[in-house]
C-alpha cells in the first residue's frame, strides 16, 4: 500500500478519552488517543488484552456500553464529529451503511430467535436494496463466500445450530452485506481453522482492492497481521504506544512493550521450556497513570519513565513510538538476543 501519507484521510480520531462509570468509581479505558485512518488501507490494532482495542472501535460505531462515555476528543468522519452523536437516529446514518463491524463475541451480535438466513437478508434488503428472490440469492452467495456449505439448508437454521467458527463467519457475512466504506473486524478469525481463515482473509482483501474498502483488524494473531496489515498500531493501557508500517513494526520495533509482545510468540519458544511472558500485571485503570504505563513491567525503564509520559518520537515519516529510550540523551538499549535475531532474519527476507 506504500505511501500512506499521500492518501486521503477517511477517519480521524483526535485526543480521544473514554471513561466508564462503575458503581461510584471511574475507569479510564482510552487515554488521549489520536489516530488517522486512510482510504483503502488496512490497519491492524494489536496489544494487550484489556488495553482498549474493542472500546476504541466500539466508540467509532456508537456501541459503547451504557456506563461508558466519551470524555474528551473528536472522531471525525465525513465532516461529522461522531463523538458528539447522541441519538440512535444519528448513528443509523453511519452504522452499517458507512462503517460496519464484526464484533468480538459473535453470539451476542446474532439474534438467537431468527434464522441466520433472515438475519443476513435484513442487511441485504436494507443496504443493497434487493428484494425477493434476488435478496435470497445474494444471501446464499454471501454464505458461500464465507465458506459455508449446504447453503439452502443452513439458511433455515438458527445460531445455536452452528459451530463457533461458523457463527463468526455469519457475522462477517452480515457486515459485508452492508457494503460499508469502513469495515472493522474485532478478532474476526479467532475461531477459524487456518484454511478457512486464509479464505476469509482473502475475501476481505479482495473487497478491499475492489471497492477500496478501508479495514481495521483487531487481532492477537501476528500471523494474521503479517498477512493483511499495511500499518500496525500497538496499544497498551488505553494508549497507542507505537505505530508504523507493517515491516517497521515487525522488524524494527522500538517500544519495549512491542518487543515483549513479539518475544512471547510460541515460534520463538523452545518446546518443554517456559514461554517468554511479560511479568507483572497491567495497571489498574481506576487510578491515574504516571509516566509510561508500561514502566513498572519494563526491564529497560529509565527514571523518567516513572514520572513523565513520553511523547511520540519519530523514526520515519510513518513510524512513531512513545518511549523515552528514543530521546537523544537516553542510553542505547538493544532488544533481547532472540528478538534481534528475529528482526534480522525478517529483514533478510525483506531484502532477499
Amino acid at each position: 500500500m506504500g505511501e500512506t501519507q499521500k492518501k486521503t484521510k477517511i477517519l480521524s480520531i483526535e485526543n480521544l478519552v473514554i471513561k466508564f462509570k462503575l458503581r461510584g468509581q471511574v475507569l479510564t479505558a482510552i487515554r488521549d488517543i489520536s489516530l488517522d485512518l486512510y482510504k483503502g488501507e488496512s490497519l491492524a490494532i494489536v496489544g494487550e488484552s484489556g488495553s482498549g482495542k474493542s472500546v476504541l472501535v466500539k466508540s467509532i460505531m456508537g456501541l459503547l456500553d451504557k456506563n461508558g462515555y466519551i470524555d474528551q476528543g473528536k472522531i471525525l468522519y465525513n465532516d461529522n464529529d461522531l463523538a458528539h452523536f447522541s441519538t440512535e437516529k444519528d448513528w443509523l446514518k453511519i452504522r452499517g451503511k458507512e462503517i460496519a463491524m464484526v464484533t468480538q463475541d459473535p453470539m451476542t451480535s446474532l439474534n438467537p430467535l431468527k434464522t441466520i438466513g433472515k438475519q443476513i437478508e435484513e442487511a441485504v434488503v436494507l443496504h443493497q436494496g434487493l428484494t425477493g428472490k434476488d435478496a435470497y440469492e445474494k444471501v446464499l452467495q454471501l454464505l458461500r463466500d464465507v465458506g459455508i456449505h449446504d447453503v439452502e439448508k443452513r439458511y433455515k437454521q438458527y445460531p445455536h445450530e452452528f459451530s463457533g467458527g461458523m457463527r463468526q463467519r455469519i457475522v462477517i457475512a452480515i457486515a459485508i452485506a452492508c457494503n460499508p466504506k469502513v469495515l472493522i473486524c474485532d478478532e474476526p478469525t479467532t475461531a477459524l481453522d487456518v484454511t478457512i481463515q486464509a479464505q476469509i482473509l482473502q475475501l476481505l482483501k479482495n473487497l478491499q482492492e475492489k471497492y477500496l474498502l478501508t479495514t481495521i483488524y483487531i487481532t492477537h494473531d501476528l500471523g494474521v497481521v503479517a498477512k493483511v496489515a499495511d500499518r500496525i498500531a500497538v496499544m497498551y493501557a488505553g494508549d497507542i504506544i507505537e505505530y508504523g508500517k507493517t515491516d517497521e513494526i515487525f522488524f524494527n520495533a522500538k517500544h519495549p512493550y512491542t518487543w515483549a509482545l513479539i518475544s512471547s510468540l510460541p515460534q520463538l519458544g523452545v518446546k518443554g521450556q517456559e514461554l517468554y511472558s511479560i511479568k507483572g500485571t497491567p495497571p489498574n485503570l481506576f487510578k491515574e497513570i504516571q509516566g509510561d504505563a508500561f514502566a513498572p513491567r519494563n526491564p529497560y525503564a529509565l527514571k523518567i519513565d516513572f514520572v513523565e509520559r513520553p511523547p511520540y518520537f519519530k523514526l520515519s515519516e510513518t513510524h512513531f513510538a512513545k518511549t523515552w529510550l528514543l530521546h537523544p540523551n537516553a542510553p542505547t538499549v538493544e532488544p533481547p538476543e532472540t528478538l534481534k535475531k528475529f528482526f534480522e532474519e525478517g529483514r533478510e527476507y525483506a531484502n532477499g
Partner: protein
Amino acid sequence: MQMADREVLVEVKNLNVTFGKGKNAFEAIKDVSFEIYKGETFGLVGESGSGKTTIGRAIMRINEVTGGQILFKGKPINGKISKDWDREITQKIQMIFQDPMASLNERAKVDYIISEGLVNTKKFSNEIERQEKVRNALLQVGLLPEFASRFPHEFSGGQRQRIGIARALVMEPEFIIADEPISALDVSIRAQVLNLLSKLQHENNLTYLFIAHDLSIVRFITDRTAVIYKGNIVELAETEKLFSNPIHPYTRALMSAVPEPNPHNERSKKVEIYDPTQHNYEANPPSFVELEEGHFVLANEEEIARYRETQKMGVTS
C-alpha cells in the same frame, strides 16, 4: 516411549453424536475413537464445524451420545451412573468453553461465577478460604483480584476468557477440556496461561484435551494430536511426528496454511487445498491404520500402499 504401558485416563469408543431426527438428522460425529493418557496434553485440530466442540461437550455430558461410549478411569460416564460417580466426575472433569460470553452467567459477579463450582461441591472449609481461592485463581490468569466484584459484560474479551479459565482451574480437576482457551488473549498472556497449564500439569499430573486452531500453539504444547475432518479422525500421531511428517492430504493442507509472523513469508506462501473427492472410498472404503508406531491414518488399501512408499522414500534421518 512405551505408550502401551501408560495409564489411559479417558477413552472415547466409537462415539457417534447425531443432532436432530429423521430427515433432519445430522451426524456431527461419525465413529470416533481415541484414548487420552494420564498426564498428557492431547490436541484436537481440524476445520471449523468438524465436530471438535461436540466431542468436548459429549465428554462433559452436555451433548447426548447417540452411539458408542466414553470412559473415564475405565468407567463409563454416560447413561445411567451412580450419584457418587456423577459427583466425582462433575468435579474432576472441567471444560473451558469456546464462547466465553455465552458461557458466563451475565447476572452474576465474577466472585460468584468462579466459586459456584466450589460451593456446589463444598470444596472449601470457610469463607476466607473461598475468597483466597478466588483471589489466587484470578491472579494466576493475570487478572486483578479487584475484578471479583464486577459483572462479565464489564470486561474485555480476553479478560472474560480468563474468567472462564479461572473458573475451571479453581475446581482442581484432573482432566480439562480446553476449547480454544486462549484464542482471545494477546501472545504474552497466552504464554502466561500456557506456562500455568504446563506447571499445573507437572505438579498435579493434570491431563488436557486441547482444542485450538492456532497450530503453532498446538505444536508447542501438545504431546499427541488428532486431526478431525467432518466428524471423522483422519490422522493421529505424536505431535512432532504429525507436524514434521503429515500424511493425510487434509493434514497436509492444514499445515501448509499455518500463518507465520513474517509479512514476507506470509504473502508469498503457497497453500495446499484439500479436495475430499480425491479418495475412491465408495469402491474401496478406508479404515484407521497404524502406519508406524503410534501414527494412525484414515486410508484405504491403495492409499496405505502409496503412503508407505512415500514414507520409505521420505526417510531422512
